[in-house]
């Protein structure tokens, strides 16, 4: 088994005449945490959407876990082992924590009953507790509905969902953009826990401090192209800002932008 979990070769996305993403070559190693940075419209989210199958790429290759893949939709990607924490939370407000974690993939008994098959509440509750322990999320009453939770707790539930299902790759798109200071700290703690457990992660973020705190490597996008691939140790905030704004371009990407 190769130690590369995700690789893209020449990944390109055009929206009509708009070249949102151009020739992105990207490699993510198993257990590695990589941040994707860049200005608004630089191509970060476009890049993520091509990988998770939300959109279909114009050309290029995506190799996930050693296999070339072409996901028809986000569900395919999830079944292959890519869990995405969306900017807008995909949680049902009136359901509780285990219900949300297992939404669409409930554990059931008596499956011959078809749509009326019974829910295995006990087993789902146990797996939920295990998932919460694994991510270090503390939610005292998992039977509480999401509507009664704070924004931070909701984001934690969304992240715990990825941990419960032993995904191979987690992608988080601005997970803390809408959160307060304390809640952001809690989400960051969970990301650290995922790192300790060797989960691979792509983190899209605008937050420089957060990125330097959490990841191993920083990829910078500018105007649809990758312009830098920096090890955290070899760079600093000013350097990254220079790449984001276009003052500098990585040696291997000369002529790209």
């Amino acid at each position, binding site marked *: 088994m190769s130690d590369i979990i995700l690789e893209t070769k020449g990944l390109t996305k055009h929206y009509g005449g708009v070249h949102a993403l151009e020739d992105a070559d990207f490699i993510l190693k198993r257990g590695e945490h990589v941040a994707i940075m860049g200005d608004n419209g630089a191509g970060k989210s476009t890049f993520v959407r091509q990988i998770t199958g939300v959109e279909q790429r114009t050309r290029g290759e995506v190799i996930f876990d050693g296999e070339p893949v072409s996901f028809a939709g986000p569900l395919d990607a999830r079944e292959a082992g890519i869990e995405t924490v969306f900017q807008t939370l995909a*949680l049902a407000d*009136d359901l509780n924590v285990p219900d949300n974690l297992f*939404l*669409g993939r409930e554990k059931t008994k008596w499956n011959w009953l078809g749509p009326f098959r019974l829910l295995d509440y006990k087993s789902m509750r146990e797996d939920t507790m295990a998932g919460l322990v694994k991510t270090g999320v503390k939610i005292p009453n998992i039977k509480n509905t999401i509507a009664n939770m704070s924004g*931070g707790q909701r984001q934690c539930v969304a992240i715990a969902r990825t941990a419960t299902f032993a995904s191979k790759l987690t992608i988080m798109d601005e997970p803390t953009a809408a959160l307060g200071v304390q809640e952001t700290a809690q989400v960051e703690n969970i990301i650290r826990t995922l790192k300790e457990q060797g989960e691979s992660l792509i983190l899209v973020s605008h937050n420089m401090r957060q990125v330097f705190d959490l990841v191993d490597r920083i990829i910078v996008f500018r105007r649809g192209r990758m312009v830098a691939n920096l090890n955290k140790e070899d760079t600093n905030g000013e350097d990254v800002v220079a790449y984001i704004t276009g003052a500098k371009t990585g040696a291997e990407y000369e002529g790209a932008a």
Partner: protein
Amino acid sequence: MSDGSEGTGGLTFDKSKRSWPNELNVLGALILIIIIFEVLGAIFMQQSLLFDTRDRFDSIFNEARLRIIIIQVAIIGIIALGVTQVIITAGIDLSSGSVVGATAMIAMSFAQVAEVNGAMNPKAIFGPSFLDLPVVIPIIVGLTVGTLAGAINGLLVAYARIPPFIATLGMMLFARGVAQWWSLGNPVSFPTESYAKIGAGMMPVIIFLSLAVLFHFIMNYTVYGKHTYAIGSNEAAARMSGINVPRHLMLVYMIAGGLAGLAAVILTSKNLTAQSGMGLSYELEAIAMAVIGGVSLFGGRGSIIGTVIGALIIGVITSGFTFLRLGAFYQEMVLGCIIVGAVALDQWQQQRAASRS
């Protein structure tokens, strides 16, 4: 999680946010309404609404009145069980009353006797080979017609993406038209003896309560129920989680239609005749039962138990006004106020919940 602190990173969990089951509020409302009627009864009628005030020791309650209260809401209550599920998906079903009308006419046509007083049944719709059929045939026909109407609603809502209000409004008019066209406005009468037993005596109540127990179980312990709540709560999330939302909605509307069809069978059996105007405004009463019972029109919240209590509230009010010898118009005014009050309360609770989080 033994350290007592709730959450990491300074996040705290407010125990007061734990939700109080909404059904208890509805039950409280039912008890309050009963108390009001008891007080009014004691003052103006020198009688009790529900309790036995005669000099006997063999019963506490006035059983005859209890029976009337539940029997008059049982048939619409069956419809309300389906309507509840539709509303929980954030939809609405305006067609159930007309579906009752159309199904009543069609099902009854398969339940007629051959001979009335020694002569050929004067109301027979079909030829002799369709008379004196076994009772299962009209039952199956009724359930099929209702389910079919629900399936068309489901197709329009789930696959053609027509708003539920419009789709079921169309079905409401269409089904009423079918009911009138079926026998050109003539009633369909003289059912077989076995068909007449379906809705006789307390049968509607027994069927209503059995179905309520069944659907309470289904909504709380099966994948169907969970997905119904999920779709009403956040349809986008349900879709992203891999739930086949159109197929599920289709099933929900089919169940609602099937229950309306069953209600038509029971109603025609009870009345021994089918008329094209049957079930008029039943859809609104069924929606009222659900809404009074705490089912949110915004979807995602509500329960079968709530709807059953909502049905009882309507039954108690109807009986209570008769008991106080007040006209039916007062009763409708009060019901109107209660429905608006229930929705206002739901809105207020939701706003309060939103401002707390």
